[in-house]
């Protein structure tokens, strides 16, 4: 376990060195967030509330999703694939930690830094410009913390799984683009899932994607309370476990097929 935390700390330090990139990314996220807020406001028109979300909730939603981009690597994550292409994977597999936990530790460090530098600061900048909805009460804050942690676990499981495709094909980036692109819509990142027709919501809930973004948002906005909140967290936990299991199965199958490139 000590090795795990040391790797996490290493990733934190590495991530903290990209200061200029963080600032530029922050401005870009903010710009796109406000652009999306304008579009949602135009959709609302004269309406006060749609599907249980007020205009203020909808604006907050755009801030929350922009804040989640770096934390959950929503635009895609190809670090593991790259390590396969460069041959680095050979050395990483020898680490006395297990391949899944090795990347988990690194991604935890990356995600923690992103959560603070990109996530939190976006919301603070947002708060300067618009009225934000804020979670109310101890229960909701605790629910939010749990949902945030689980969303990262689910997201990591999915990203790890997609990246494992590089054990089989040198064309895994294409698969990745498709996999991460679908998550854009089905996770509720593109638009709040509640705005979709019921059949689409049902469809999305057959996938792990809502557990990545939508649950966190609904917990934050207070749209899930009591048993519904607990159920959503349980679903997140179940997906995290299922994906971790799937990852270990696929990893075992993949190790036999792995072709180490270059080096």
């Amino acid at each position, binding site marked *: 376990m000590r090795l795990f935390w040391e790797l996490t700390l290493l990733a934190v330090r590495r991530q903290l060195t990209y200061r200029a990139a963080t600032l*530029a*990314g922050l401005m*870009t996220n903010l710009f*796109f967030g406000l*652009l999306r807020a304008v579009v949602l406001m*135009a959709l609302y*028109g004269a309406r006060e509330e749609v599907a249980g979300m007020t205009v203020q909730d909808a604006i907050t939603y755009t801030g929350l999703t922009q804040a989640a981009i770096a934390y959950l690597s929503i635009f895609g994550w190809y670090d593991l694939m790259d390590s396969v292409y460069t041959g680095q994977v050979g050395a990483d597999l020898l680490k006395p930690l297990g391949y899944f936990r090795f990347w988990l530790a690194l991604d935890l460090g990356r995600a923690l830094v992103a959560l603070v530098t990109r996530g939190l600061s976006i919301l603070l900048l947002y708060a300067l410009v618009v009225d934000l909805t804020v979670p109310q009460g101890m229960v909701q804050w605790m629910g939010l913390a749990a949902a945030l942690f689980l969303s990262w676990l689910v997201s990591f499981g999915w990203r790890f799984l997609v990246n494992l495709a590089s054990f089989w094909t040198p064309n895994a980036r*294409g698969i990745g683009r*498709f996999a991460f692109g679908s998550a854009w819509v089905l996770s509720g990142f593109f638009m709040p899932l509640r705005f979709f027709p019921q059949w689409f919501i049902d469809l999305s809930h057959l996938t792990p994607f809502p557990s990545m973004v939508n649950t966190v948002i609904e917990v934050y906005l207070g749209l899930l309370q009591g048993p519904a909140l607990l159920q959503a967290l349980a679903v997140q936990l179940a997906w995290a476990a299922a994906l971790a299991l799937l990852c270990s199965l696929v990893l075992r199958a993949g190790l036999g097929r792995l072709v180490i490139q270059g080096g």
Partner: protein
Amino acid sequence: MLARTKVEQIITWWRFHLTIYRRLIGVQIRAQMEYRAAFLLEVFATMTTLFLFFLALALVLQRFGNLGGWRLGEVAFLWGTVEMSFGLMDLIFSGFDPGRFGQRVRRGTFDQLLLRPVNITVQVLGDEFVLRRLGHVFQGVAIFALAVYLADIQWTLGKILYLPWVVIGLICFFGGLFIMGATITFWTVESIEVVNILTYGGSEMMQYPMHIYPDWLRRIVTYIVPAIFLNYYPALYFLDRPDPFHLPAFAPFLSPVIGVGTLLLALAFWRFGIRHYQSTGT
């Protein structure tokens, strides 16, 4: 006689560089077609992923009815023209993609291009030709076709003749933004993510009717980066909608002028950048 040799020189110049360009992208197309199944799969994947975004907007719009008074077909008109033009631009100007070009400058591989006795602009143009971007173009065409079907456009000869010019205007405009973004990396070295606000942000903004944006933002895209004339004003003309901002009646027809103007301006900036370029030494 003197004038004639001048013309001949220009023709030879163009012929030579067109051959170079054809060869540069020919090699890449052959390489990318090497694994035909993988290539087709990528085109299909790009197309369906991007189309999913539009489908999501369509489903949400169904619930809300309209977006700033525009219905699905009308928004699709904006979305389709922007997406097909951006896709085509990306196919042609990929070598100038600020992110990728910045990497070239950083690694010093740009210097290799400078050493070759061939026009540098042609080389960068032919440097990256990502054929799978066709998926992006197809997706734009599909959405545009949907717009034509849904929006009940009253086609006239003028509209049919003008349509290709709108696409050309948009391609030149986005291409110009790519070139300016690439040129900036000569000084910043770091490919700056802020440039994305201009390119990808601009294209995203143009997918929606411009009257939904706050006044200050709309003034910027009217008078500073005149993106509003590239597809919003043409859309008003194609969809027979009144102009909410009461600009002169020729406003919808500025698209090719502003598009080509942006590209020429960008090329001038690019030449200036090349003259002042100092290698990173890597």
